[in-house]
């Protein structure tokens, strides 16, 4: 750790000083921050730093080891690329939020105890939401609000779990845990929310496509991969995660096929990619953890590249709906090429980064003999190529010509995409570089004849399936629509159940009141009938009839007297 600077600190503190710079100075300053951070972190000694005691607990703000370092490196690289991609953007809120968010993400990676982790965990939530709100649309505001509630909720669960765990074990150290007590379950769920586990995933597909063009590139890198890191640190070898991860790889791809918003397609595919990493964590062997870390590293780059290319399209054309795009390769040839590089990388074509990363996880799963999980991952690999590899470039840049003509993406976007694309290819071609960063020693050769041929077969036959479905017009067209997902529960059903309950309670209360009022009115009406001004007991009697009745009474009395 060069200069003794805690990782992440440069970006967080640096974000506060952004307003002091203007114009090109600010851009230079923002670009230097992640570079300096990376420089300070490179080759850092392993160990704990700045440890102090709070009451009886050890707070360990900085803990450096191989697992946190590889994530730390890629987070800095992602921050740098995102900043370059956003050079054209002068929105100071986004600039500050982006840097502080990246810094919080980096800080979380190096947290040695659960309380420090919690602080960074919530800092990520609070800073990142501004990248969504900065879009300044009503939809972005609402999606950001839902995002914030869910993210902060995850932090609250984490804190609750940490407190319970401290009570049980007397330690708040962030180390490997085993499921069994409420404390560890709460912590797992907190991680699971940020990692977009099934049924906790919708904040991702909801919020990321609503964020700003540059904001989504930032968002795609940090939160979810920080959660993968946290799982790899806290729950390696937890078998449950194998099945959770397998489910995550499979179900989002069905949505990705029918989704029209291409950035939302990418959000679903992000979810699918996280599944591979979660499976790796669940297997927990050295090979599998290496797989998860390598996949996260490669994934951050190619997913950022894909979001960048779709962001460039959105920037130039003003929409990112598949139903309105097509034929853009004529206007944006470079963006098209970069997008295809990202697509090839996420699909794990040989010579691209996904290939050398995903192979580790798949081999680890096969090595442990999980046949069904392996088949699901293989299905998901074919599916990834289908929707991210083909659908994204095809509907944006090829397909039927939408007639839209625009300029190529701004130079800074092209530079960011160019560097990212270069890294995707370089990592894929020269596997020893990424492998040397992995947490465990690697003895793995991705480029065997059988592996290369098998992967190419899998992918080319998936392409064939797409081609056949297109040719025979079976492929579902892009339609202007939304597709229901689990978020309907809290966006529609819960609010409408709430309003229904309110209505029923209010109506019920009103009718109870009405009944009571009717009863009281009835009694009053009865009394009024007898005692009111017209009532029988309140009537004025004529004197004549009085005399008559007295005579009748007296007559009756006389009669009785004589009997």
């Amino acid at each position, binding site marked *: 750790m060069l200069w003794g600077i805690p990782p992440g600190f440069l970006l967080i503190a640096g974000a506060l000083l952004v307003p002091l710079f203007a114009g090109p100075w600010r851009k230079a300053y923002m670009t230097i921050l992640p570079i300096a951070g990376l420089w300070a972190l490179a080759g850092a000694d392993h160990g704990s730093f700045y440890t102090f005691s709070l009451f009886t607990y050890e707070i360990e703000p900085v803990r450096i080891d191989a697992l946190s370092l590889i994530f730390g490196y890629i987070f800095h690289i992602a921050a740098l690329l995102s900043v370059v991609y956003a050079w054209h953007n002068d929105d100071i809120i986004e600039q500050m939020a982006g840097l502080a968010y990246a810094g919080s993400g980096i800080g979380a990676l190096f947290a040695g105890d659960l309380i420090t982790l919690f602080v960074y965990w919530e800092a990520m939530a609070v800073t990142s939401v501004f990248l969504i709100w900065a879009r300044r649309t009503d*939809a972005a505001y609402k999606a950001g609000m839902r995002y914030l509630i869910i993210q902060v909720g995850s932090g609250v669960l984490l804190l609750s779990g940490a407190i319970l765990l401290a009570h049980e074990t007397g330690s708040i150290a962030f180390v490997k845990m085993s499921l069994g007590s409420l404390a560890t379950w709460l912590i797992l769920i907190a991680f699971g929310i940020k990692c977009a586990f099934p049924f906790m995933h919708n904040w991702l597909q909801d919020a990321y496509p609503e964020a700003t063009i540059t904001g989504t590139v930032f968002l795609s890198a940090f939160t979810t991969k920080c959660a993968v890191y946290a799982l790899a640190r806290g729950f390696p070898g937890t078998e449950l995660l194998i099945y959770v991860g397998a489910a995550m790889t499979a179900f989002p*791809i*069905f*949505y990705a*096929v*029918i989704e029209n918003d291409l950035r939302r397609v990418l959000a679903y595919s992000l979810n699918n990619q996280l599944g591979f990493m979660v499976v790796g964590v669940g297997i927990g062997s050295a090979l599998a953890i290496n797989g998860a870390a390598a996949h996260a590293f490669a994934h951050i780059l190619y997913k950022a590249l894909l979001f960048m290319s779709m962001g460039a399209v959105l920037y130039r054309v003003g929409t990112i709906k598949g139903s309105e795009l097509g034929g853009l390769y004529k206007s944006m040839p470079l963006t098209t090429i970069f997008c295809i590089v990202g697509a090839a990388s996420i699909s794990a074509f040989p010579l691209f980064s996904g290939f050398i990363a995903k192979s580790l996880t798949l*081999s680890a799963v*096969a*090595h442990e*003999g999980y*046949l069904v999980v*392996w*088949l699901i991952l*293989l*299905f998901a690999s*074919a*599916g990834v190529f*289908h929707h991210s590899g083909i659908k994204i470039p095809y509907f944006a840049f090829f397909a039927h010509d939408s007639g839209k003509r625009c300029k190529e993406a701004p130079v800074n976007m092209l530079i960011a995409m160019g560097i990212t694309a270069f890294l995707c290819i370089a990592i894929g071609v020269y596997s020893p570089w990424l492998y040397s960063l992995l947490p465990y020693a690697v003895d793995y050769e991705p480029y*065997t*004849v*059988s592996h290369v*041929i*098998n*992967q*190419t*077969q*899998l*992918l*080319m*036959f*998936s*392409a*064939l*399936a*797409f*081609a*056949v*479905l297109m*040719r025979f017009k*079976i*492929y*579902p067209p892009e*339609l*202007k*629509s*939304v*597709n*229901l*997902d689990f978020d309907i529960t809290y*966006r*529609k059903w819960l*609010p*409408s*159940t709430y*309003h*229904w309950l309110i209505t029923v309670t209010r109506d019920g209360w009103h009718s109870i009141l009405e009944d009571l009022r009717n009863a009281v009115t009835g009694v009053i009406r009865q009394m009024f009938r007898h005692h009111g001004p017209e009532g029988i007991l309140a009537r004025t009697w004529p004197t004549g009839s009085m005399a008559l009745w007295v005579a009748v009474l007296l007559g009756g009395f006389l009669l009785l007297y004589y009997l």
Partner: protein
Amino acid sequence: MKNVNKVYWSVIIVCGLLFIADALYHKHPYFSLETWFGFYGLYGFIACIGLVLAAKEMRKMLIRDEKYYDTDNRDNGDDA
């Protein structure tokens, strides 16, 4: 020939070659499935056809208008 047709037929040819290539190398299988001739190709093809057909059926149930979530729940009943 139109570009689309060129792409279509080249994909078919590449797939054909890759299918034949299965006879030409030594396999290192983890599972016995992998030793089936052309397993990866056939699995990929069937998986993707199945994926798209299933997604198409799913869409019939899940599709809603773009404005579906824009309506304010306060003014509407349970399913507006």
